């Protein structure tokens, strides 16, 4: 609520409150040249990270649900990107992606997959992809565990029944596993949308060398408005903060509504 109040205020560069401006900050927000790009970035960032994470996690969870030697170790290993601090992970990836020192370029060029190194974090064409890859990497553990827990609640008998009916493995997966996994998928999707939308450290750290706002999401843009751009305006930034909170609430509501609607139809 203090955020709402801040969004209605006028602030000096120093942070000093200079009185109320009503809804003017919101009007100015809409006028910002960078806003369409930033919103588009945010949509791509959230949609792709969450979609790819869910797909990969489904496969990973299925794999970890199998009995195989060393399963315990693999399960533990998967926690590592989750347990490490986001900033440290992001910094690590900055070095992996580096044009001159990065492992990635070194590996790809040595293997002959690339003719010349790529400036992954500097080239406008690759920055978003590079950030999304890291976003997926850090979202996998949590999502996989949610889905794994979901898989383990599916009783063995339903699979036996499917086998008796002569269903193929793929058919079993599509008709038995996925529907029963739906609650877990739902939880994973909603939580991921919220976490990925709010994710600051990855976008901030991987994008910190690029001037302007061409690769920012609404969260990093909000920070730049307040402290790192010529605007230097806490009130305007708070206005975007309010919009962010509303946007994520709305997105989750719409998603839940859509899912429930489909459930009733089925």
């Amino acid at each position: 609520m203090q955020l709402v109040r801040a969004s209605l205020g006028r602030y000096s560069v120093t942070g000093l409150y200079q009185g109320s401006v009503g809804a003017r900050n919101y009007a100015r927000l809409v006028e910002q040249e960078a806003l369409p790009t930033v919103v588009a970035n945010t949509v791509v960032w959230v949609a792709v990270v969450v979609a790819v994470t869910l797909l990969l996690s489904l496969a990973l969870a299925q794999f970890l649900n199998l009995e195989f030697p060393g399963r315990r170790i693999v399960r533990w290993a998967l926690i590592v990107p989750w347990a490490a601090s986001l900033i440290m992970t992001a910094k690590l990836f900055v070095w992996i992606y580096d044009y001159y020192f990065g492992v990635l370029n070194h590996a790809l060029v040595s293997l002959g997959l690339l003719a010349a190194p790529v400036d992954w974090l500097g080239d406008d064409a690759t920055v978003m992809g590079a950030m999304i890859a890291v976003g997926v990497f850090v979202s996998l553990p949590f999502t996989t565990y949610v889905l794994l827990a979901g898989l383990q609640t599916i009783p063995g008998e339903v699979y036996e029944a499917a086998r008796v009916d002569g269903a193929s493995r793929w058919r079993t997966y599509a008709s038995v596993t996925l529907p029963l996994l739906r609650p877990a998928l739902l939880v994973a999707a909603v939580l991921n949308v919220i976490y990925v939308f709010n994710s600051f450290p990855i976008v901030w750290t991987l994008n910190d060398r690029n001037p302007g706002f061409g690769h920012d999401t609404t969260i990093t843009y909000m920070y730049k408005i307040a402290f790192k751009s010529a605007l230097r305006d806490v009130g305007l930034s708070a206005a975007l903060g309010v919009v962010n909170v509303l946007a994520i609430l709305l997105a989750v509501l719409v998603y839940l509504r859509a899912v429930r609607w489909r459930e009733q139809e089925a």
Partner: protein
Amino acid sequence: MRRTWTALAVLALVALAPSACDRGAGNSIKVVIADYSKDHTRSFWQSLSETYTKQTGVKVDLQVIDWNSIDQQVSTMLQNNQPPDVLNLNSFSSYARDGLLYTADEVLSPKTKADFLDAFVQGGQYQGTLYGLPILSSARAFFYNRALLARAGLAGPPRTWDELVQAARKIQALGGGTIGYALPLGPEEAQAEWSIWMWNNGGDWKSGDRWTIDSDRNVQTLSFLADLANKHKVTQVNPGKTNRTDGAFQLFKDGKVGMVMGFSPLAAQLDAEGKVDYGVGEMPTNTGTSITLAVEDYLMAFKRKGNQESVRKFLDLYYQPENITRWIAAEGFLPVTKSGLEQMRSNPKLAPYLAALPRAKLAPTTDPAWDKVKLDVQQTIGLAVQPGGDPREVLGRLQKNATAAESGR
């Protein structure tokens, strides 16, 4: 699940209800210092605070904050109506404009004030009155890799821009990933790199009260930098998207780079690693006079009822020659006082910077609009040296915004 420490949290701080100010009138002061180095900053200010408390009985709430978050934390303090009593920052004039600061005469003894070097008194004035007290200074210098210069058949570092282009070409031509000149115009410190190039072509930020960012001379300078990157191809990849610390300096420390603009902390790191045989000289110039950038950081005293005497004593303690000089020497920066200059003159490591100091210029920090212009330059100027970038258009936009910042709030 891990808490996402997002900017949202930062702004949530805005939202925290301002708690009552529990600092009694003269019993405690809040001192906020920027973290210059892990090794020296906290230990120096901690011991200074203890000495101060022993002498005066006034407690010190010392906060050492890293550069990445200090702007935001200070802003939050002010939003919550809990300003520091003493603040160390790289800007001051916006605070002076907002009427938050004591003048130097209100919190310094005449003797202390008289010890300041003139250039730094100039650099701390808002509308003719000294508010920004110099805490330390630094100056840039031209670093070159001796081994690479020798391999490229160069007798010494370039003195002019033409020589620089030739030298950079020869170094770049050595192949094997060598880079002629490392040009960091990414958001971290683009305004510093740009200032130096601009001044060495006879341009400037302002002329009198008027911004002159888009002057023909400056367009020529920025076009020259774009040519270094795109026509001569003697810089690292994407110079508009390279930061200083983890970009240009890192490459120089790795021995890949022939030339770079550095400062004394870079020299300290190079000495510690012992990997690169480097020389330090003057910035090549296109006008016959080499000019470098000096940076002055500030101490400010915030007005609060009943704190004036406590703040005065704290500042006087810091400005005692043995204290200020001990700290500046430990951090590897340059003096801001006449007594400090006398003491540090004998240090050969500092000789190139001290020699450059008389012809060094400061960024226009005395103008409150600079706080916005600086950020605008950081977020914009790199775009001009990318392929297809338009120097005139970029500078025109900066000029327009600077003029608007001047007349606006």
